[in-house]
């Protein structure tokens, strides 16, 4: 009985984290590039906004998301009209994970882009490559390592996400991630179950860190 919950919750968590990583990639890379390469009005504000989930408590981020997406929130009422359900579903899990992982992705990716000598991008332009081509063939590959590190960080953060998740996804049977399941089992006194899930979480964390180290070492 416990084994099937363990497998289900672990698989669910991994899948949600993977989807969340995919979701955070386009905006994350775009923001990283923008912040690395462009000067514009409001740039500091954007920078701060992106870093916000890192410095305020995750539950606070979750609360903000809940207010925005809840039935009475600005986005929520719109979603209700179109019949799209986010709060308390798996989509909320993905959203919470993506929002919390994004700042880490942006930071790493931005450092990656900043390490790319602008000279290469300039020369590529003189050779006739438009901005998109320069980005895809020069900036992105050369920022590769920083980008990859960012993706791994974002994914790891998504895996362990708890505070925001529990606010907008709750602890429903269909939305329990590994961290939420550990918490819930602990709360209701199911110690053995909590420990088993804990072991799974530690194992995954271990694997993620050693993979990240291995990739970082091959510089």
């Amino acid at each position: 009985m416990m084994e099937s919950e363990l497998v289900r919750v672990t698989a669910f968590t991994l899948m949600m984290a993977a989807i969340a990583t995919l979701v955070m990639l386009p905006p994350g890379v775009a923001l990283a590039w923008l912040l690395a390469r462009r000067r514009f009005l409001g740039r500091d504000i954007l920078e701060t906004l992106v870093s916000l989930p890192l410095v305020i408590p995750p539950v606070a981020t979750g609360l903000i998301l809940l207010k925005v997406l809840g039935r009475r929130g600005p986005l929520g009422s719109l979603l209700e009209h179109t019949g799209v359900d986010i709060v308390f579903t798996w989509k909320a899990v993905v959203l919470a994970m993506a929002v919390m992982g994004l700042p880490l992705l942006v930071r790493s990716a931005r450092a990656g882009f900043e390490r790319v000598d602008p000279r290469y991008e300039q020369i590529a332009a003189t050779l006739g490559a438009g901005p998109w081509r320069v980005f895809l063939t020069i900036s992105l590959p050369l920022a590769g390592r920083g980008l990859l590190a960012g993706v791994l960080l974002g994914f790891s953060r998504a895996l362990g996400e708890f505070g925001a998740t529990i606010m907008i996804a709750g602890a429903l049977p269909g939305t329990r991630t590994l961290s939420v399941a550990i918490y819930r089992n602990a709360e209701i006194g199911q110690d053995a179950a909590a420990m088993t899930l804990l072991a799974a979480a530690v194992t995954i964390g271990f694997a993620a860190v050693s993979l990240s180290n291995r990739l970082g070492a091959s510089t």
Partner: protein
Amino acid sequence: MFSARYGLLAAGLGALAMWGGACQNTEPRLDTKPATVLVSAAISLADVFGAVADVYERESGTRVLLNLAGSNLLVNQLIAGAPIDVIISADVRQMDRVEAAGRIRGGGRMNLLSNQLVVVVPVDRVGTVTTVDDLASPEVGRIALGDPDAVPAGVYARDYLESIGLWSVLRDKVVPTRNVRAALAAVEAGTVAAGFVYRTDAAMATNVVRAFEVPIDTGPFIVYPAAVVSAAPNATEAIRLFEFLRGSEARRLFEEAGFIALQPAVSETSGLFTTSSK
């Protein structure tokens, strides 16, 4: 096994108690520092107990420190070693856990209050639910209640729904919350279509409307047991407060808030501890 988890919280509470104790030790004159008593109370008692504590503080000069949470969490904390003096849970099951752990002072347990379950809906959805069967309607979305595996309010709700054969139908719609106030908050915010709360909670809330009441005679019997914790740090204060709670003043406050007092009205405090009866 519990202590690893609740170590931090227990340490926090322990630090609080020790700090209080340290203050006592450094004070040169004993009569200038107030006595304290630490009470863990089920979260549905939040508002009424605040009022009760105020009255008690004024009359006795003892400071009441209130620790509010879902009863299951309160019991976890207590068993993990938190320095609680008096505990009031929202169901018998949780108090039995305390008793099984040997943490109740001899003779110091009583059934203090009862309550009633109601179903509330957000104020802008008034009329969507009038009977319990309406909950099964496809127009009614999610239903919030305390986690039915551990939170008393949730257990009561599930017991009730099981007794009328609606649990299996509704369980997919259930949003389990940490405690009954969280369920109430979800209904207030409109993120769920309905929620099971105590009528005392519904009375305090804005933005919600009572859809229907779970009948007291056919519904679950809700009991709030209260107990003095064995080896309580402030044992004398604990016993005094305990007696106050079954007195007429406290009773009046509880009833005004909508609770049902279970202890017989006594004009004299023939305390549980002063008589030799069991």
